[in-house]
């Protein structure tokens, strides 16, 4: 049962091991470590039962008993694929770094040490089931990137690093405050403080405080993604970071923020989510449009991808905040897709930049003439970035738009879909201006080296695999996403929760089974009318984990339900 601890600490162990061996072998140690972690995570994901309990492979131990902080890890439908994305991403990035001058740099040890630590931290943030543990790992995962940027970046790396630190630190501090407050406020008088996420969800945070708590969490997550207008660190940070590091930073770390919404902000603070969701939704839509248009005009290949990430994360946020299982599952799927696509895109930009000596699109062109294999791989990546129908990215966007249409507002979905069209323009523009057209003034086209092509083929194959069978990914996410958004949806309106349950066949069966048991609850609780019917549906369906009282939107204990029925 200690699999998750092994998975979590293996990268860190190899990071330390890398320090101990001679610096020439460090990179191979790191590569072995990353591949081992990847293998382990694949085993764990295969071992996951989609229909099993919500938390699997639980590891639970007291960490700081005085504060009620526990070291609790678990694999869930929410984090499973993101964890796999993280191990894939770090393996990709480490192998890549090992093949570049970074790998033979005299400070190569630092590179791989930081990457290993970062990987452990990301996995920790994903797997943590304790709020404080999550916050700790969330902050820890950023620190190695500060070092990597400051040491190995290019251009104005120090100001860029400082900017990143200031931005993310402010967000993190807000989140820390909010996390502690959530734990304390949720504690009923006389009970021990607990930061266990499920425990807090059971206890419920007082509704009056949920608004500012949600705002704090949202600020931390939105900065991390980043979203307009708090993306000030993005341009400098992305420009300064070495590309192998940037690939994993953009592909994996921003997804932890998405995960944070689904894992923490929404289920723990349903009322706050319901109150403030429009703010986040507007931010997301504005981010999509703004970043897409900027990506359309910038000439820096890297920045095209940077702003495209902002736009894509805007979509993902839309999906999350639709408070519907399809939107949320689409957001998760899209997180995985976007991560994979971004790995490939950044590697392609690196390969192009290597041929050109700059990352300016005006210097590029005609790369495909001498590099047919590269061009084909790149075009697949481009299609994934622009979410062409047939790729899993399209499936993700479809689910997100559907969720937004039904869960938020049709107008929002229509406005957001402008971003889809713009994505086609900027992604193709990147491809055409680099690989097609006349050969550019500076670029010297030549086919990618074997390792470059082999490495680029990895995301391409993943894109194809995801495209052929996206169901694999959303299957596990489905129930978890339902669980995650249900209480918030109920906080918005009881009807919405009932709709969600009506759509979900697995939940429906449970609802019928529990119908009689919970039937009287709504009336007894004084909810009356439509709320009573909603109570029957909602509480019954969610019976396996948490039941939702539609009148309050708060999760209620199952035992309390039956007592209520008795009264």
């Amino acid at each position, binding site marked *: 049962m200690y699999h998750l601890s092994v998975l979590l600490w293996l990268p860190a162990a190899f990071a330390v091991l890398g*320090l101990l061996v001679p610096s020439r072998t460090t990179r191979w140690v790191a590569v072995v470590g990353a591949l081992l972690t990847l293998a382990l995570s694949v085993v764990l994901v295969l071992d996951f039962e989609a229909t099993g309990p919500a938390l699997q492979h639980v590891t639970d131990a007291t960490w700081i008993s005085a504060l009620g902080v526990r070291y609790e890890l678990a694999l869930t439908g929410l984090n499973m694929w993101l964890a796999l994305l993280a191990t894939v991403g770090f393996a990709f990035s480490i192998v890549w770094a090992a093949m570049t001058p970074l790998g033979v740099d005299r400070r190569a040890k*630092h590179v791989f040490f930081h990457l290993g630590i970062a990987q452990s931290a990301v996995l920790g943030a994903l797997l943590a089931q304790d709020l404080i543990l999550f916050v700790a790992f969330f902050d820890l995962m950023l620190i190695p990137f*500060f*070092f990597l940027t*400051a*040491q*190995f970046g*290019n251009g104005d790396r120090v*100001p860029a690093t*400082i900017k990143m630190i200031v931005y993310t630190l402010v967000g993190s501090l807000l989140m820390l405050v909010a996390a502690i407050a959530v734990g304390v406020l949720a504690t009923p008088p006389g009970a021990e403080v607990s930061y266990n996420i499920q425990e807090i969800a059971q206890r419920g945070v007082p509704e009056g405080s949920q608004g500012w708590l949600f705002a704090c969490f949202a600020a931390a997550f939105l900065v991390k993604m980043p979203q307009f207008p708090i993306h000030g660190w993005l341009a400098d940070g992305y420009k300064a970071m070495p590309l192998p590091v940037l690939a994993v930073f953009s592909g994996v770390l921003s997804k932890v923020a998405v995960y944070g919404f689904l894992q923490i902000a929404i289920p723990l603070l349903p009322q706050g989510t319901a109150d403030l969701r429009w703010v986040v939704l507007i931010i997301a839509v504005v981010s999509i449009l703004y970043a897409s248009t900027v990506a359309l005009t910038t000439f820096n290949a890297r920045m095209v991808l940077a702003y495209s990430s902002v736009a894509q994360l805007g979509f993902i946020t839309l999906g999350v905040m639709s408070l519907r299982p399809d939107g949320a599952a689409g957001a998760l799927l899209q997180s995985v897709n976007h991560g994979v696509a971004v790995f490939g895109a950044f590697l392609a930009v690196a390969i192009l930049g290597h041929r050109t000596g700059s990352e300016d699109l005006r210097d590029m062109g005609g790369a495909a003439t001498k590099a047919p294999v590269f061009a084909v791989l790149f075009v697949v990546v481009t299609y994934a970035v622009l979410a062409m129908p047939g790729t899993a990215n399209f499936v993700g966007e479809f689910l997100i738009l559907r969720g937004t249409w039904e869960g938020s507002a049709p107008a929002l979905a229509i406005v957001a879909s402008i971003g889809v069209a713009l994505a086609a323009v900027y992604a193709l523009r990147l491809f055409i201006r680099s690989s097609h057209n006349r050969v550019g003034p500076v670029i010297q086209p030549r086919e990618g080296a074997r390792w470059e092509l082999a490495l680029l083929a990895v995301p391409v194959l993943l894109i194809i695999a995801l495209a052929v069978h996206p169901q694999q990914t959303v299957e596990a996410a489905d129930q978890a996403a339902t669980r995650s958004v249900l209480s918030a949806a109920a906080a918005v309106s009881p009807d919405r929760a009932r709709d969600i349950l009506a759509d979900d066949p697995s939940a429906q069966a449970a609802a019928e089974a529990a119908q009689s048991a919970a039937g009287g609850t709504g009336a007894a609780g004084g909810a009356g009318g439509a709320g009573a019917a909603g109570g029957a549906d909602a509480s019954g369906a969610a019976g396996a984990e948490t039941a939702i009282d539609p009148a309050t939107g708060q999760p209620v204990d199952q035992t309390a339900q039956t007592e209520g029925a008795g009264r």
Partner: protein
Amino acid sequence: MDEILFFVAGIAAIVAAAGTVLLRNPFYAVLSLVVHLLSLSLLFLLLYAQFVAVVQVMVYVGAVMVLYVFVNAYVGGSEEPRGGSAPTLKMFSYAIAVTLAVTIGIAVLGTGLKAIDGAGPENIPASFGSPANIGELLLTKFLLPFEAASFLLLVAAIGAVVLARRRRGVLTGEERIVSAMDVLAPAGTGSMREGVGAINPNPGARSVRIAPSTGAGAPGESADPPARDTTEGTR
């Protein structure tokens, strides 16, 4: 008898302390401290702390003060120039010192602790403050602090040797001292120094080295020699 001894020793301690602070010549100041310490040990005796008093005399007057005197002689205790570099600071410091004395005095005496007015229990056992008593405590109840203290002394001794030894001939310029922080980052990376451009990331550009003391290699693509430790750079 007690009172007389107390006032003699107490006033001597205070005067000697004042002398230590005010005397311009370091040598006299140290001597004044010796007087202070001796009178303090007398006060210890009055408090039935024989062992502490003896240790006070042996350790301080016997060892520490000798060290002070020798170092003073070695350094060449020049008199401090009149009128320090910051006269306002000096006045301020005195003011603070007086405030502290007054407030601590009020705090201690005005707390309302009844026992302060008394001299403590009259019939204290004969073994109070005896070496046997303290030795037993040190080896039973306070074993861990005792060991820690001895370890601290060991470290301090080694540290003093390392700090004060002559380096010439022992370390050549080629050798470098690797600090623990070097593992995490080259010296100076991400520091404020680097932020203001004191450490030059690009070897091609104009380099402004504010002080040689950090002397870190450029963390970028530079071919500078490996990062150096501060102690080496200071020479």
